[in-house]
């Protein structure tokens, strides 16, 4: 157990080192969510009466800011596993596989690094939304919000690692990831209240872990809960989702890397 943690930290350390050396990417990856929050947030400002009808007092942009924070977390973490493919192509993976560290620690180290990076990106978006006028009733809530984002990203980085370990090419990886990412984001109350979705869409959204992450973060940011989903249920769903993904990712990764690339 001790050595699993040490090995996980080793890989985590390496991933973060690599991330730090590619700082230019940080800003580029922020452009898209920033466009979302600025452009979409203002485009739909006319929907304020609709939002208010389900109990939100503020502006639409305040309603959707938590959605964009989760959007950032989703995409940063679901793209994050792609370097697994490079590692296999350029031999780092074989180096790790011939050393005494366990296979699952490689997956876990990657996932924890990805989720920390995703949370850092998300916190920058949080900063942007504060800068453009989103208010925060209780600033101390930033701590549990970040905790939720890290936890949620850990689950999504699991999806990324599973896809990367199974895919043998960049093309497959990007194809599958794009196929998964956008629908998961769209089928959630990130942009529009759950109550106002058509019944069938709302039912689908309730099966999506993203929904619960959005609801939780929104509740913490605005103080309004929505859709009759309790905080405990949301936390429970996310925790179960993360546990499943961590287990699945370690299992699939261990199985796949034992096959030649």
């Amino acid at each position, binding site marked *: 157990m001790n050595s699993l943690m040490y090995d996980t930290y080793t890989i985590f350390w390496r991933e973060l080192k690599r991330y730090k050396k590619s700082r230019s990417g940080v800003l580029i990856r922020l452009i898209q969510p920033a466009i979302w929050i600025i452009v979409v947030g203002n485009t739909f400002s006319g929907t304020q009466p609709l939002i208010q009808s389900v109990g939100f007092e503020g502006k639409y942009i305040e309603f959707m800011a938590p959605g964009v924070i989760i959007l950032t977390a989703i995409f940063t973490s679901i793209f994050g596993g792609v370097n697994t493919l490079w590692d296999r192509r350029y031999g780092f993976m074989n180096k790790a596989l011939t050393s005494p560290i366990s296979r699952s620690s490689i997956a876990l180290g990657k996932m924890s690094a990805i989720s920390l990076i995703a949370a850092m990106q998300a916190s920058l978006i949080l900063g942007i939304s504060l800068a453009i006028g989103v208010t925060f009733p209780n600033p101390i809530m930033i701590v549990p919000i970040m905790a939720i984002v890290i936890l949620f990203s850990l689950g999504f980085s699991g999806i990324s690692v599973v896809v990367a370990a199974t895919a043998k090419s960049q093309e497959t990886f990007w194809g599958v990831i794009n196929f998964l990412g956008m629908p998961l984001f769209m089928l959630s109350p990130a942009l529009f209240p759950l109550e106002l979705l058509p019944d069938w869409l709302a039912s689908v959204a309730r099966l999506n872990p993203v929904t619960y992450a959005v609801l939780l973060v929104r509740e913490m940011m605005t103080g309004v809960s929505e859709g009759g989903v309790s905080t405990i249920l949301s936390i429970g769903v996310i925790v179960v989702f993360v546990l499943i993904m961590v287990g699945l990712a370690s299992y699939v990764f261990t199985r796949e890397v034992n096959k*030649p690339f």
Partner: protein
Amino acid sequence: MYSIETKSLSKSFGDLKAVDDISFNVESGEIFGFLGPNGAGKSTTMMILTTLLKPTSGQALVSGFDVMTQPKKVRQNIGFVQQESTVDEYLSGRENLLLQARLNHIPKELIAQRIDEVLELIELSDKQNDAVVTYSGGMRKRLDIAGGLLHRPKVLFLDEPTVGLDIQTRRKIWEYIKKIHKEFDMTLFLSTHYMEEADQLCDRIGIIDGGKIQVIDTPQNMKSAMGNEVISLTIENDKNEKAFLSALEKIELIKKINQDPNKITLFASKGTEVIPKIFQISSDLNIKINSISLTQPTLDDVFISYTGHEIKGDDAGFNRKREHAKMKRLRA
């Protein structure tokens, strides 16, 4: 005690037998080389021995542990320097070694000292804090080798350690490998398709071709088994050529004759005595000799005599494609 033992080791990818029933032992402290052309099965064997691939059948023990049933024990006792550079380009040399040290569970209090030591050995101390992206090919290779050494493995595997490097750098790497062997007294197992490399470095060589080991011996024995000298000659096209060859075969000092369309190669002892006899025969048969040369046998000659063909040139691109196709087949 043997460092590496294999018994009837085989690995098939679909119909292709990449490694075909090979058995060999490598003694502790020995430098053993696998010599063969691209696609001969060298890398596949090495991947089995380093626990990256499971053999289809047969057994392999590394440092006394079975690669199939005790892979973790094997991994604790080996270092593996791959053909391609595997260092992280954006990390510094020292950071790369630190990563390697942690991957191999070197005790925390020893890490700094070990890193200083290997940096000294491969003469990269002054560049240790530069990003690897600024290193030359030879420096990267040295760093790769250093990474394989850090944890003082009992067996160090080197897969084509000098492929793609220029000749001066290659010689430099050989020096480092010899130095390492002397300093740490570890078993080295290397694969190469450079004759000179095998000749320079190895205590014993296994010639591998088509997945099978053709012969294992010291480079010296291999060369002297061929006779001590090689005579190459070219003759004018002549209908008497057959008679000429059969007459040559009768000379006792000639051990082996290889015939190419435009060149005849004779392996002989006491070549200086053989040459006059050749001239005698040729003048009897009225055959015109265009050129004749007397040389020491090289491993090239040895290789040709065992496999019937020349080792293919430095054709890494072709090799990679072929290996890739092989792996693809396995995946399907």
